[in-house]
């Protein structure tokens, strides 16, 4: 325990670690959280060409968006949708844009997916259906959603057999009508902030943890450590624990900051909305809170898995620079090459730590393994951490063997 405490202290004492954590926190919580809520993302806009043209009034705007969404009732019914469209059209007629801009994007998505036949090709802006569609024709929302989902599965090649049955069974557990509230705040949290968390953590985890083992050669302390009684193997275990603790601490810091900013700006309203209000054709019977928990768990487990991979790479080489490059390549290499690979390989690469996406809960992707269809989020959350845990004993072993090189 004492050795762990000292090793952990050693890690945090490094200037590079402190700067990395500070930068990561600033980027994720300050830039991607507080400033995004208050300015870039939700500040009222008079200059649509740049988020920097927004006003610094996100907090007040969010309150007005939430109040407006709440005015349509607690559930998303045909009547509620019709009222939303009517309000958008009335505001537009009066030249008011910003007050409905937020719900407009959500409604626009519903209409284009569920009522494509209402699109007027002769209209100057045919895709902006919410401005001209006859609201009275917006009926049978849930019947149309079911049909659109089945059509989507068919187009995805998931339209028959066991896979279709599995996905539709999941969808069958989604409560209807949907609880409804202000969607875009959750969309920002689940689709932007949290979706990028793993990608950013990968960079900083690599910078901080790549020298864990290789750094001992770099700082020329390896010969000294080798002659100690506790020696190599015990130290290796402590280094691994310290690295894992750091990954968890970094995650906790970012998560705490992110959740605090979210609570201040968005509050808890809408936590029980199904994710289908955000992505109509999602099949997972999850509400926003569950989706957020999943995405945080995805980032945490991915970070732990990535830590294991970085530890192994650090133990394999004696150069800090090489360890860092390999660690970065382990996360960003697969992301870069994925688009050039067949779909099956792309999916497989997504199972590597911090390479896949937590937003797969909004999709219908599956893995077909040993004749069974498995919904991709189940594997995307478990396999990366397993990969990392498998790497750890090899890292310890490799580091231990180096002693007599």
């Amino acid at each position: 325990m004492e050795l762990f405490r000292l090793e952990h202290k050693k890690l945090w004492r490094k200037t590079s670690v402190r700067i990395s954590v500070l930068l990561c926190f600033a980027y994720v919580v300050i830039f991607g959280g507080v400033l995004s809520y208050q300015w870039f993302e939700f500040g009222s806009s008079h200059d649509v060409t740049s988020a920097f043209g927004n006003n610094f009034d996100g907090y007040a705007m969010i309150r007005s968006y939430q109040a407006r969404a709440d005015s349509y009732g607690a559930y998303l019914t045909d009547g509620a949708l019709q009222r939303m469209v009517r309000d958008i059209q009335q505001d537009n007629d009066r030249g008011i844009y910003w007050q409905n801009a937020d719900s407009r994007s959500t409604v626009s998505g519903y209409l284009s997916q569920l009522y494509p036949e209402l699109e007027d090709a002769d209209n100057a802006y045919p895709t902006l259906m919410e401005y001209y569609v006859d609201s009275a024709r917006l009926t049978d929302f849930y019947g149309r959603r079911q049909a659109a989902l089945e059509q989507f599965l068919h187009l995805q090649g998931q339209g028959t057999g066991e896979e279709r049955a599995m996905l539709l069974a999941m969808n069958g557990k989604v409560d209807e009508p949907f609880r409804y509230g202000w969607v875009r705040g959750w969309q920002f949290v689940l689709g932007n902030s949290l979706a990028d968390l793993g990608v950013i953590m990968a960079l900083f985890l690599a910078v901080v943890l790549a020298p864990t083992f290789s750094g001992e050669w770099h700082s020329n302390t390896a010969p000294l450590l080798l002659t100690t009684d506790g020696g190599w193997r015990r130290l290796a275990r402590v280094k691994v624990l310290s690295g894992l603790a750091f990954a968890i601490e970094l995650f906790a810091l970012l998560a705490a900051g992110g959740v605090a900013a979210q609570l201040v700006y968005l509050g808890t309203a809408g936590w029980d909305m199904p994710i289908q209000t955000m992505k109509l054709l999602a099949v997972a019977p999850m509400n926003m809170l569950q989706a957020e928990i999943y995405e945080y768990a995805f980032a945490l487990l991915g970070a732990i898995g990535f830590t294991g991979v970085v530890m192994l790479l650090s133990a394999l080489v004696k150069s800090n620079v090489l360890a860092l490059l390999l660690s970065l390549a382990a996360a960003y290499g697969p992301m870069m090459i994925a688009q050039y690979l067949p779909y099956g390989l792309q999916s497989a690469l997504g199972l590597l730590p911090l390479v896949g996406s937590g937003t797969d809960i909004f999709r219908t992707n599956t893995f077909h393994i040993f004749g069974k269809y498995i919904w991709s989020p189940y594997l995307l959350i478990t396999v990366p951490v397993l990969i990392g845990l498998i790497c750890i004993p090899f890292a310890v072993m490799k580091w231990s063997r180096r002693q007599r090189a």
Partner: protein
Amino acid sequence: MDLSFDRLTKHYGGKIAVDRVSATLTPGVYGLLGANGAGKTTLMRMLCGILEPTSGEVFWDGKEVTGLGAAYRNVLGYLPQDFGCYPHYTAAEFLSYIAVLKGLPRDTVQRRIRELLDTVGLRGAAGKKLRTFSGGMKQRVGIAQALLNDPQVLILDEPTSGLDPKERVHLRNLLADYAGDRIVILSTHIVSDVEAIADEVLMMKAGSFILRGAVPELVRQAEGKVWELTVPAARARAWQARATVANFRHEGDRVVLRIISDERPGSQAVPCRPTMEDLYLYHFGEEA
């Protein structure tokens, strides 16, 4: 208590770093002397068990050290050449870290660290970060860490490098005092350090021991090979080119040369009393 090694050999590819060296070391101070690349560090690393010999074995009290593992490391203290440390740790934290790695009992660690920092003259700097330390201060921290577990075998690779003359004398006294019933092996280029404290000198060249013995005994081997010759200043350079000159001292317009040579270098040359440094130059004159 003895540390012995038998035909210890290390090859790096086709290069022989240490070539079948054998010795049995009992308590005392052993000075490992040799030019750069003579094999001193390689030998020390093999004695510490951190470098696998190509062939040969190391024994501690008759038992092969690889088999002893942690039991051998428990009695070992090692200061590597170019000792590395963690710059963001304070001296006390660094020593605590090594103490824990060495498995020192928790209740004695802080007391031992205070004692050692006192011993190496760093008590006032215990709370300062190592990155602020001079080379000599870091070296003293290195020596303190090697002594943490009160080792029976203390192996110091170039312990006096980076130390100023006062610190060197202090370290020499410390080691001489420490040795007692322990085995202390130190390597150095600084012949006077070895001369001052080594009970026995092991001189290495090209991976082999070329000389071994107590200092006076070895110095005697250089008798009749050290000469003093006074020449005009203009001819001094020519002498330097054709003989091993240990010293060069101006006296008015003439120069007194201390020459190492098997033969009397000139009719005016007078024999002088040899030192360990003369012996070293006798063997390593060209490399020096």
